[in-house]
């Protein structure tokens, strides 16, 4: 794991990380992924990946509206809002 990889992953994760911190993280993460390499010892041929616990079927309910009319509640914690909309930085020029 090198600094460039850390910076690339940080970009994907939308985290601003400076060069100095990227160096530290490269060492930290490098150590962790080296330790994780032990998993290669395990023979997983023919093993189905476990994607959930229990594997219960999703239950169904009638397709009716059970919730709503909460605009004010939904907006209450917004960092910036106007007339019932979230205000966000300009995306399209």
């Amino acid at each position, binding site marked *: 794991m090198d600094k460039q990889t850390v910076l690339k992953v940080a970009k994907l994760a939308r985290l601003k990380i400076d060069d100095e911190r990227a160096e530290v993280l490269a060492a930290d993460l490098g150590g962790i992924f080296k330790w994780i390499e032990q998993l290669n010892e395990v023979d997983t041929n023919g093993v189905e990946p*476990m994607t959930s616990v229990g594997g219960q079927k999703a239950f169904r309910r009638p397709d009716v509206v059970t919730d709503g009319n909460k605009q004010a509640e939904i907006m209450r*914690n917004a960092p910036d809002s106007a007339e019932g909309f979230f205000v966000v930085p300009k995306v399209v020029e």
Partner: protein
Amino acid sequence: MTKLTDLTIAAALNGLNKGEFTSAELTRDHIGAVENARALNAFIVETPELAMEQATASDERRKSGRVGLLEGIPIAMKDLFCTKGVQTTAASKILKGFTPTYESTVSQNMLDQGMVMLGKVSLDEFAMGSANITSGYGNVISPWRANGDDKQRIPGGSSGGSSAAVSARIAMGATGTDTGGSIRQPASVTGIVGIKPTYGRCSRWGVVAFASSLDQAGPLARSVEDCAIMLQAMAGWDQKDSTSVNMPVPDFKAVLGQSIKGLKVGIPKEYRVDGMAPEIDKMWQQGIDWLKDAGAEIVDISLPHTKYALATYYILAPAECSSNLARYDGMRYGNRVEGKDLNETYELTRAAGFGDEVQRRILMGTYVLSAGYYDAYYLKAQKIRALIARDFTEAYKQVDVILTPTTPGSAFVIGEKQDDPLKMYLEDVFTVPVNLAGLPGMSLPAMLDDKGLPLGLQLIGRPFDEETLFKVGSVLEKAAGFTAKPDMGWVNAK
């Protein structure tokens, strides 16, 4: 007379029922205790006025004959449960000031059963940690100190505010969540009882998500019976969480004190790890002897993939964390740091809002899920997870319950194990496999080590067989006769 704050929940319910004291009196004493113990930094938000309102309302209900399972009992709520009208932060700066307009299902269930909420207790940021040193609101300090030293020790994590509050007798019980050991490890290092129920037993709705396939809510309290009472109130199917399981919640209290004669208890040889403190081994043997004396049959078992559990966990949990925490972008809630455009606003917001450990895990998770690495890491880990779960399934063909230590050592000093994240991760070596397999696990205090610090035993059960944990737990609790409590002198002096 015993101080009201020293009572168990069961004893307090009894006293309330007999009219020996009111919930208002019980709550007032706890509010005073919380104020006197601020040196622990256990609470992020104290809600004394709300607590007194709830206590008074509870006393009224009791008069009219309506008595819930937690009627009038003062409880501390982990700040990962959304509470309507009360700030909920997950101990992260990114959520400072966030005030939910809804109540989590678990806390609502508890309110419906008469709970009085003392406030929101701290945790590792987004429940990521084992020492409560990653909170954005300062370290939580354990009330416990070693013999002859006054160094500050960890209360465990991530439910460290919960464990500190309950062991310091400033809350009768607390909620916790457990993704890799976050209920059991804090309970173990503070000398109290904690249970992580089977995945699906409690609703995750309204609980800030860390790793959704592993997270599960549960109680921390000072007796096995108190945990049974609390879990009874917390658990149950919830239509709002598709992973909560639609099956009846048994009467957990009914099994307490029942005989365990003939019960088969598994002792997994892989849990004897290198570097384990000799006292942990001694405690484990003591636990085995206690169960033998009670008529249980001890069976040596093997869980061959145990050694891979932690590395597996540190792929899966960060992967799930990185996608769960993508929602904190400063647009709809939480704090925002403006940048020159949308992307920079995201990046600055998240860099300012998340602490180091959370950022590290987001990066790990993003990396293992990124193109070219998914199969090598994420898919591989999911397959090993299946093998770990299969180990338990095989073991439960031979045994009814498994006994292990909860942690590899007692509470360490704040600042230790901080130079290398791997050292901290090893704290959960005995608890993580249980989450990967989705099983119920309980930690209960067994003894003090030679430093005078608590050590805990862990019981692991079959899926949805919390009853066996409560049954065996009550046998161990009786045999251990653990009555030690922290000396609060230093806490209250401040």
